[in-house]
């Protein structure tokens, strides 16, 4: 007996997908950018709504960062530089993969992952040095929310680095799509973090 499934039209030729992983990663990067920039927009809204008070130079500043909290500038700047290094390592992996140099591709991917871990460590160090208590006020709540979200994104980047590294280690050197998408993801993380660093840690 003929079933409904037997009556569907036959399949066409299989089409080779064009850079699906790169496009998907680009979409996720776009979503992540909107996530972080949306959070920064709300951050701006609250900062602008805060009252004015005299700053250290006598200039009136928004009373947003509580006076008892100090941003550890060395640690935050180190974190920003760390993120840039991670992106450069990601691009090094692409450069090596394009030359079918599996050793350097693996090395670059593992270093990217390790630099990502260093970035996580730096963020944790910033939390410790600042000593902000989450429940103390609006600034602290929003500070942990936005930097915590960034931290989760960096963790996902580290996982991506190690997955890509182990794929290359397993012999899939010719599979450049993953390495390229990985680099794109780290570019996104770096660009987004730099924006966050400037707004939260530099402008305060």
């Amino acid at each position, binding site marked *: 007996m003929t079933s409904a499934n037997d009556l569907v039209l036959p399949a066409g030729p299989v*089409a080779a997908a064009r850079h699906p992983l790169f496009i998907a990663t680009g979409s996720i990067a776009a979503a992540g950018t909107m996530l972080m920039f*949306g959070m920064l927009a*709300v951050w701006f809204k609250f900062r602008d709504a805060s009252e004015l008070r005299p700053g250290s130079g006598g200039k009136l500043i928004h009373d947003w960062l509580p006076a008892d909290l100090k941003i550890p500038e060395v640690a935050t700047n180190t974190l920003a530089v760390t993120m840039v290094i991670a992106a450069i390592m990601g691009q090094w992996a692409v450069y090596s993969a394009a030359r079918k140099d599996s050793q350097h591709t693996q090395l670059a991917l593992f270093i990217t992952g390790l630099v990502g871990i260093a970035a996580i460590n730096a963020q944790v160090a910033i939390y410790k040095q600042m000593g902000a208590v989450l429940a103390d006020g609006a600034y602290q709540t929003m500070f942990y929310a936005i930097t915590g979200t960034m931290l989760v994104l960096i963790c996902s980047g580290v996982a991506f680095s190690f997955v890509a590294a182990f794929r290359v280690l397993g012999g899939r050197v010719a599979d450049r799509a993953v390495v390229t998408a990985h680099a794109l993801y780290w570019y996104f993380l770096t660009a987004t973090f730099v924006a966050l660093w400037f707004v939260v840690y530099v402008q305060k």
Partner: protein
Amino acid sequence: MTTVNLPSTLGAEATAGSGFLSSVGAWLTTTDHKRIGRLFIGTAALWLLALVGVGLVLGFERIDSKTLTFNEGMLTQLFAASKTLASFGVMVPLMLGLSLAVAPTQVGSRSVMFARNAMLGFSLWAIGSALVVGALIANGGPGGGNAQMVDLYLLGLALVIIGLIASAVSVVATVLSARSAGTDLADVPSFSWAALIGSSSLVLTLPVTLGTLIYAAVDHHYTRIAFDGNMGLGKWLGWSMSQPQTFLYIIPAIGILAELAPAVARRAQPLRGGVFVGVGLVSVALLGSVTQNVHGLAWTGTLSDKAKSFVPYALFNLLPILGVVVVLGLALLALKSDSIKMIAPFVPAFLGGGMILTAMLGNAVQLVSSANLAGTVFEEAVLVYISYGTVLVAWGAIAYWGPSLWGRMLPTKAVVGVGALGFIGTVFAALPMFIAGFADQKADSVKDFDYSGPVKLWNLVSTLGHGIFTACVIAGIVVAIKSFTTGEPVVGNPWVDGGAQ
């Protein structure tokens, strides 16, 4: 372009094994894009039942504004449920489900790209939406009194949003990267184009909601200072369940209309590029959404003040209307043909499209400050028009693509009947609220409103409308289940072979 039915090789495992458990397991682990799409559609149908039930209960409560059947806390949650379910339980998943089921076959791909990601998206959405509904039942939605349940609501909503983004990414990747050889983006069918634009809009706007949600969740759980705790959730997250954001959710519905008109006219769509531009214009609403503000029109002050108010208002609220008008106009142009043969799915889709356009026009009127419609039931009516209209368009789409998704057809009379009933229900449910809005009947309230005019009549007719739509939804679900399981198998493409007018 003709829609072809490509059997998914990835879903082959679904037929292996027998028995109920293996069947459920096969569905829950499927990578067949048609099954994932059907899972979205089927689960959205369940939430649709809940949505119309909520509409019915709230309408019933409004008939007599002096007495309350339910307590106020429950009513607050019912209003929150109607907004949350309309957007994230019905409109987005229905359209995303259709996109996942249909777009890959339209562009000539065997499967959706990253099918497991799409399935993960469905799972997260389904679990999240169940948590949201559970939290709402336990007094945990916006304004809810149970703090732990409010946290659960926020967690559920976050899962819903992450799931929808994940599935939308798969649709975007499929249309952009898995088209058959030689098919340019300009050659894809109108629905696939709308699926791409709609999914891209979700990918770009839902993360903004997620960001605010994270702030609100952390604030609610720990301090309740910055975001006003449970009472502030509606204020901070409300834009994602309101207009113009909802315009983005229904973009695929515009594509369905654009797809069905040439099928009725039996000719190629004239000025196809115009349809693409029209669909794109609707997505301009995303610029308004990401600002997380309402952009009303205040026609007061100097010319500069008027311009400052008019430009964002027109950009974010009028341009999407222009987009829909362009698509509808070109659909009518396609219908100017000697070879027209009406097909049943076009009827509900066309009526639903009319409801969506009415919602957009209503939204534009509501945002004119001198109309004094803000905070009235006029706002609610806009959401009813757009959500019920989207359901009607989806019903048309299910009837149209049913043969390629299920291998069976819906009966013509049932498709038209349910569509017509749904249209009547939508008009009855929403139009009286438009009128009551002009009489200043408050939104999100079921009591203490009194104005000159037949107060009871408007609310009674609206309740009747929700009742009719509930009957329409139940009838639609019954007809679909019966026809797609035991109906006659379809031979070839029924819309081309002339067997289904």
